[in-house]
């Protein structure tokens, strides 16, 4: 068992290393690289976590495992809200995401938030991929967690879309596509109305 602080600093260093060592024309690849690292970690982790689990009934059951057990083991809390349109899109909402709670509020920091979400996104994708769900995971920050007011409005949403991978389509193609622009966000509100 390692201490929380060590892991958080390690993650911070990893993000800063990837962004420091990159050449100018490869800026877009930073997020992909971090996502790929997360993918690898997620894949190995889920194998260990599900060692003694029975088979999942369906996709929703898999998602529930992800929100409760996986999130619990990795972030020491459960996902605050899980929503789905029953057509393969799931929205996981974490109101107090570990890698963001320490960050200051403000536009400047909001812009750098995607850097710190690529690794967790990759981890989700890696975990789901080993559970047989090929998907695309994107994240969106609607406000920094610290901005949260007493009434508990929606600070941080991770939105992800399991998408079938077609024969002949390389997994890497899929990965590059997701993070072609790190600031790209789905308009969640419009989506759910």
């Amino acid at each position, binding site marked *: 068992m390692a*201490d929380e602080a*060590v892991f958080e600093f390690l993650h911070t260093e*990893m993000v800063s290393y990837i962004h420091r060592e990159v050449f100018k024309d490869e800026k877009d690849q930073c997020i992909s690289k971090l996502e790929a690292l997360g993918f*690898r970690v997620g894949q*190995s982790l889920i194998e260990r976590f599900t060692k003694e689990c029975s088979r999942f009934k369906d996709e929703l059951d898999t998602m529930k495992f992800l929100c409760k057990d996986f999130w619990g083991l990795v972030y*020491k809390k459960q996902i605050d809200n899980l929503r789905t349109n029953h057509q393969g899109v799931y929205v996981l909402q974490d109101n107090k995401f570990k890698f963001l709670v320490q960050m200051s509020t403000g536009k400047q920091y909001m812009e750098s938030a995607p850097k710190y979400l690529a690794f967790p996104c990759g981890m989700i994708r890696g975990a789901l991929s080993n559970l047989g769900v090929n998907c695309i995971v994107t994240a969106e920050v609607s406000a920094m967690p610290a901005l949260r007011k007493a009434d508990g409005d929606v600070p941080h949403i991770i939105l992800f879309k399991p998408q079938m991978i077609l024969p002949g389509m390389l997994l890497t193609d899929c990965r590059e596509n997701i993070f072609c622009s790190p600031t790209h966000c789905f308009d969640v509100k419009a989506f759910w109305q």
Partner: protein
Amino acid sequence: MSRQGNRAGDPRKVNGELFTLTYGALVAQLIKDYENDEQVNKQLDKMGYNMGVRLIEDFLARANTGRCNDFRETADVIAKVAFKMYLGLTPVVSNWSTTGDEFSLLLESNPLTEFVELPPGHANLNYSNLLCGALRGALEMVQMDVDVRFVQDILKGDNITEIRLKFIKRLEDAVPVGED
């Protein structure tokens, strides 16, 4: 359903596997990015240093250990308090030099290398070099210039992992440029 219950445990601890695997992924990325092991070691040391600089603040705030009077006391605090707190293990302090400015930390197990096997051709790689950097960075913030390096590593076939710390000098507070 035989799902494992909530194994949350101590809220300040992260899952050991998560930490080990994340570190492994990072080292693998470094090896991909750099041609030789020396550069990988250097990068790991640098990252460790940055972590150490921040960790010491966390350490002083939480550990409540007070001031160390000599290097022997520092060694004890590192092994018994810091390692225990951050990695959950207690290395043995030994091999003191006669002048008392150099000692070794002996680790029987190393959480960073739990699932690791070094492939051939990486004889110079210090896989856990992050630890050296972190120790150096943390000690520098409490005015100690210390040289930290790996002497033995279980990964390379040694019986034990040994980190050697050598006290170089006491750092004096430097006045920022332009201020008297």
